[in-house]
């Protein structure tokens, strides 16, 4: 190759570039490194897939740190201590499914009553259910 390059001095730059590129593609090490690179990428993809299948994959470090700043709604807690009992009594009395037997609202009433029983001591949830009962069951509350 060097002999040829010496014989044609005017086109040396073009020919040397061509030979270099040809050398790269024909060399064994180029193909070996390319295959190795592809294998590494495939392994990384596989590892990431496996990680995402883990149940704790969603637990990142940032999320754990932010859990420290988890705000507990103390006002709701105080409301629950003070008023959830009365609200529950009122709601369970007015939204009881037995009041809606053979009516189109029976299913909704059953659903709302189940929710009321589940959130018996959560004032915020009970207040939302009260609004829902007002709109969907057309119940008139005193307050």
């Amino acid at each position: 190759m060097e002999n040829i390059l010496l014989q044609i001095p005017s086109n040396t730059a073009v020919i040397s570039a061509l030979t270099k590129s040809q050398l790269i593609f024909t060399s064994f090490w180029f193909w070996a490194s390319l295959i190795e690179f592809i294998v590494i990428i495939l392994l990384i993809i596989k590892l990431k897939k496996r990680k995402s299948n883990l149940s704790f994959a969603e637990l990142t470090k940032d999320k754990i740190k932010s859990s420290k700043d988890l705000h507990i709604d103390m006002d709701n807690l105080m409301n629950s201590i003070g008023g959830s009992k009365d609200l529950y009594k009122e709601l369970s009395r007015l939204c009881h499914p037995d009041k809606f037997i053979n009516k189109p609202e029976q299913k909704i009433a059953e659903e709302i009553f189940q929710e009321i029983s589940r959130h018996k001591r959560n004032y915020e949830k009970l207040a939302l259910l009260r609004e829902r009962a007002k709109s969907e069951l057309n119940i008139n509350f005193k307050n």
Partner: protein
Amino acid sequence: MWYKIIVIADWFGEMAERNKLVRDFNKAAKNAFIAGISPTLLETKITLGESAFRHAFSKFLGGGFRIKALSGRPMEKSELIEVGKVVLDNEELVRKLISLGWDTLEVHDSQGFRGCK
């Protein structure tokens, strides 16, 4: 050495978080009482706790979360239990209490030594 410094920093951080929770509770209770939402003034304190309820994360000599109800009249046992049940029904708060080293929830009356654990 760095490990020890991190451990000490964590310990202080946790203590600050415990105190913050107690402070937040007391503040909310005071506001609720002033606004007339709650009929009783509640106050929380960190106490020794009950050794029978100890768990792996319990704080030594600080496992009790006492809620004292300053109602001005002797409260019935059912009322005390109701306050305790409302606190225990709040899942987020219970998880936080356990993770911060509390193991016993005490609800006390303002008079005498009557209370529930």
